[in-house]
């Protein structure tokens, strides 16, 4: 009897855990992180707001268990939950399905991490976060309010790109000096929501230069064959300035190319892309910060008038503790397409961690 590849990884983890079972009392941490908000459309005739209502929403609910087996070896298990419509039953006689929106947990991370096998390196094996968004997300700092440009691209534009925050595979990250860091990752390419569906693997590369204290420049690229003759590529640049105390300014630019994305009428390939400028300022450490961001989205380089501009601004207030933060924020959408009316949302986001 042979194990299917999708079952092999959990079995390997289970065996490794069993191996270390007597030692699991060392350093275990359990953490829950929740992004909860109340959002309200301030316009009622926009492309998005026309059909939306005021609503409370759990946008993310993470449960993370980490176990440091020793100073080199660490294990992480993270559940996430969302309320994407789930099919709960299928009636073949009536050719109908039933759906609900219950929050359901799913596995986001399940990996082993080994540090310093080679000096200043980290190796991860399993379902792990990709290197695609991590640096930009850390610098933006407000994942609770909004995903970063590339991460949230599909949510904003409706255009799908192969960009996922977690995937099954292996990675090597490290630094050669304080001026240079790198990351290499090989993953299935379908993300954490699906089992592998083709024979091709996705390769991700990242190089970070920090030539001056507080100035960072990151070049990123990923590649995956789509068919034997077609491929998909993402190019990305992130730059960050943290040269003024308490102020962070970042710029993210990316371009996604997929040979399968073609204009129906002409057969020409189109790319998608965009750029994002963001900043945050710590007014009072652990108490009050301000943040703002401008995004420009280009869903189809062969089409004019489809670009979207988005402005997000708000503040982050921790009245009692950093584990409970209130983050009022406003979202303003502007469409190049003159037929689409602008959208304005107000959201009261609450970040909780315990």
């Amino acid at each position, binding site marked *: 009897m042979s194990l299917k590849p999708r079952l092999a990884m959990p079995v390997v983890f289970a065996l490794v855990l069993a191996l270390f079972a007597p030692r699991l009392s060392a350093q275990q941490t359990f953490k829950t992180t929740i992004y909860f908000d109340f959002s309200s459309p301030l316009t009622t005739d926009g492309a998005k707001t026309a059909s939306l209502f005021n609503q409370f929403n759990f946008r993310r609910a993470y449960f993370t268990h980490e176990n440091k087996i020793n*100073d080199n070896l660490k294990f992480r298990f993270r559940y996430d939950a969302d309320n994407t419509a789930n099919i709960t039953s299928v009636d073949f006689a009536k050719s109908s399905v039933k759906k609900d929106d219950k929050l359901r947990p799913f596995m986001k991370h399940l990996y082993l991490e080994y540090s310093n096998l080679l000096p200043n390196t980290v190796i991860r094996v399993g379902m792990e976060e990709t290197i695609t968004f991590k640096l930009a997300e850390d610098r933006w700092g407000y994942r609770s309010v909004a995903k970063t440009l590339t991460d949230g691209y599909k949510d904003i534009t409706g255009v799908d790109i192969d960009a996922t925050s977690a995937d099954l595979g292996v990675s090597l990250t490290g630094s050669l000096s304080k001026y240079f860091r790198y990351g290499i990752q090989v993953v299935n390419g379908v993300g954490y929501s699906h089992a592998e569906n083709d024979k091709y693997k996705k390769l991700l590369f990242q190089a970070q230069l920090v030539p001056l204290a507080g100035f960072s420049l990151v070049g990123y690229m990923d590649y995956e064959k789509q068919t034997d003759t077609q491929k998909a590529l993402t190019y990305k640049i992130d730059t960050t300035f943290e040269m003024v105390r308490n102020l962070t300014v970042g710029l993210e630019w990316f371009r996604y190319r997929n040979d399968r994305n073609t204009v129906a009428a002409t057969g020409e390939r189109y790319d998608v892309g965009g750029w994002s400028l963001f900043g945050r300022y*710590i007014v*009072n450490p*652990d108490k009050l910060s301000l943040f703002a961001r401008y995004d420009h989205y280009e869903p189809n380089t062969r089409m004019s008038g489809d670009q979207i501009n988005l402005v997000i601004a708000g503040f982050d207030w921790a009245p009692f503790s950093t584990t409970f933060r209130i983050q009022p924020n406003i979202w303003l959408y502007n469409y190049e397409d003159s037929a689409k009316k602008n959208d*304005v949302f107000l959201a009261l986001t609450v970040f909780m961690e315990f």
Partner: protein
Amino acid sequence: MSTRKFLFILAKGLLVGLLIFGVGSLLAQKKMVQIKGSDTMVNLVQILAEEYMDRNPGALLAVLGGGSGTGISALINGTCDIANHSREWKQKEIDQAWEKGVKPRFFVVAVDGLSIVVHASNPVNKLTMAQLGAIYRGEVKNWKAVGGADRKISLYGRQSNSGTYVFMQEHVLGNRNYSTDMKEMNGNAQIIEGMLSDEGGLGYVGVGYLFDEQGQVRKGIKIVPIAKDDKSPAYLPTDKIAVNEGQYPVARSLYQATNGKPSAAAASFLKFEMSPEGQKIVEREGFFTIKPKDLVQNEKNLQ
């Protein structure tokens, strides 16, 4: 909504943002000095801060523990003004600081004789550095192997965000991993509690945690003298001369770090800590005073 209206809303938003920014900046000028980090140092720095605030009405300082790693991270992330740390920064932390534009300046504010403690009934009267390292790596598991009773050694240590954990690992364990049998405690006080109830216990704590409110070594624990090697005499961490002259092998500096030149409020507190008055408090709390060469370097770093 037209583009013009959109831009109007955007301009209003930016204006409100700038107003918040301006008011916020003014508020920030009156904020308290936030100090975070080393659990070994937290009691000492809290007492120093209280005495400083008594002498300087209007001065506001908040002191939190969490471990050296926590304090260093907070300084790198801009969430504290002064980081307390009982170990030197790791290369990874220096690299992170560089990436985030943080240029740390270091100040030695006290000296600690890291103390090796056991239950009062333990007959062991000396351990060498090699023996101590072997025990904490899990290579020696019974007190009998180091001159004690035939009893299993029960190891107590700190969590990995502790500077003391890292200091021991670097200076005693030869940068190798701790025994997986070690109980990783939240703080020095918990290790002392462990020693009081565990006859096979072995732990390490900052020298300031050895004493009770009367300044006497706590009843129920015993401090083990430590020798550099088989041929060297063993010393106690309470021996001021041995610590000052480098004969006690697990003595260490206790540091504070700021991001670049400290603010006026932070610099004023640092000067108080280094002053004869501040150093008298350091001694009163069981730690040792800084050396003249550290004082000279501290003063340079204040400029």
